[in-house]
């Protein structure tokens, strides 16, 4: 039976040289996706190693309950340091156009994307980050709060505010916060 993430971190803390590499093979792609969505693929390639090395050095500070939000928190800090050195657009880059897509679907999707991009640009950085952690990384508001180092109530209010803005900008009502937490 596979070890849990928590066991792997515990073994890494105890000196098992392979345990953290095992954890990387398990979650390396998720952390890369986190970086890639926010900084683009090339920077994600460059920053992935730094995130994992920082996580390895800080392995004794992990206190649970889940490892992935802790890794996102480290990735979040690495990204902030990266942007301080080289400012980047915080709105996700537009996906490449697909000239072979069906016209109707393409128009609809691109229109929706444009609305979303505009809405995300309206959001504050704090609200946007909570929203994207919930939607893209599938974290609960509580886990998003842990990633960002903010109280759970603050994360919930930021998420509520972000959904409210999306509701104005978008065409359909957003999901409720409680659905994720349940």
């Amino acid at each position, binding site marked *: 039976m596979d070890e849990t993430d928590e066991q792997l971190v515990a073994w890494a803390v105890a000196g098992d040289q392979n345990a953290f590499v095992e954890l990387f*093979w398990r979650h390396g792609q998720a952390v890369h996706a986190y970086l890639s969505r926010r900084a683009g693929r090339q920077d994600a390639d460059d920053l992935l190693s730094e995130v*994992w090395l920082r996580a390895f050095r800080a392995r004794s500070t992990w206190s649970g309950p889940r490892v992935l939000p802790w890794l996102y928190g480290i990735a979040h800090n690495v990204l902030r340091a990266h942007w301080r050195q080289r400012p980047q657009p915080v709105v996700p880059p537009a996906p490449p156009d697909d000239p072979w897509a069906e016209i109707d679907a393409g128009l*609809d999707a691109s229109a929706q994307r444009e609305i*979303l991009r505009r809405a995300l640009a309206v959001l504050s950085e704090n609200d946007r980050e909570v*929203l994207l952690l919930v*939607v893209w990384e599938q974290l609960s508001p509580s886990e998003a709060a842990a990633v960002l180092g903010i109280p759970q109530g603050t994360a919930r209010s930021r998420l509520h505010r972000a959904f409210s803005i999306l509701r104005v900008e978008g065409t359909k009502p957003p999901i409720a916060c409680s659905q994720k937490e349940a």
Partner: protein
Amino acid sequence: MDVIEALEELGRVEPPGTEVLTRTADDLRMAAGEPAPVRRLAPANERSLGRRLSIVGSAILAGAAAAAIAALVLSIPGSPIRPRPAAAAVLAQAATAAASQPQLPPLASGQYYYEERISSGPCLTTTHPASPPPVTYVSSEALQTWTTTDGSGESKSSPTPAAHFLTLQERTAASGTPPLGCATTSAATVPANFGDASVLALPTDPRTLGALFAEGRVSDAGQVAASAPACPSPRNPNKPQANPCSVASQFNVAVNLLSFPTAPERLGGELFRILEKLPGVKIIGNQTDALGRPGTAIEDPSSGIIFVLNPTTGTLLESEKLAITSSEGVPVGSTLSTMTYGPVSVVSGLGALPS
């Protein structure tokens, strides 16, 4: 489209390339105290320069990386990332253990290293004179060697009680007498620098050794070719065993080198690391060797070689060769030969046995 679905679509990204994942895993291994088997992360300025200069190259590499990762991922349905194969995890553990094994103790005057191996396999080359149809006799020999630090010494082989006819009918047909040459006792003098000297001269740097393996330049006796041979072999382009760069060849060479008495504590970590990276290598399960020692069996299907190792000590216990083509004289999947490697110990002189 729902606004959340649209947002999710906006967040859809391509998975990272194999090189990025491997590089990060190596960085982690280095941080954890293990040597990195592949190249280190280039400095940021070099990466930027490379990025600017290699737009076309990147596209080609990306395609190759995508193909490689697709091949890895296809074997694991539902998983978008390559989980560490069980065999690789065991081999990585063995590599770490082997690298920390103590050196063999130095020899005092008159002392020898002693090792006993058990070799077995069908003896097919001789037909019993009293039985015109060939009989299959599974020979089993104990091979004892006494060597000094320069590799010189003596060897002795003698049949063991484990030797047997394959079937009762064949035993009856041969009147219970082993075919000629299949169960004999012999002794030989081992010349200096025979065997281990080449292995001891191999580079211990994992990157250098790995590159030599990938180029097919290392023989199964440890000699390094001056230049890289043609891969695949022009004479047998479709035969993996004849391709010195193939997985089958690299697996065979690495297992052979591990069997040299002085190799494990010097090169064990690097050789297990090479085996860990070979695609297709799989774990069979727990297996006990002919000396009754428990271990884990690892197989390379392309060469038909299985070996049993103790992953907690990084010790090679046994190797086995299976027939992978019908041209090898026995049914495909049958055992062609088995070698069990006893521990190496220091004895007081030629012919002496461990206490």
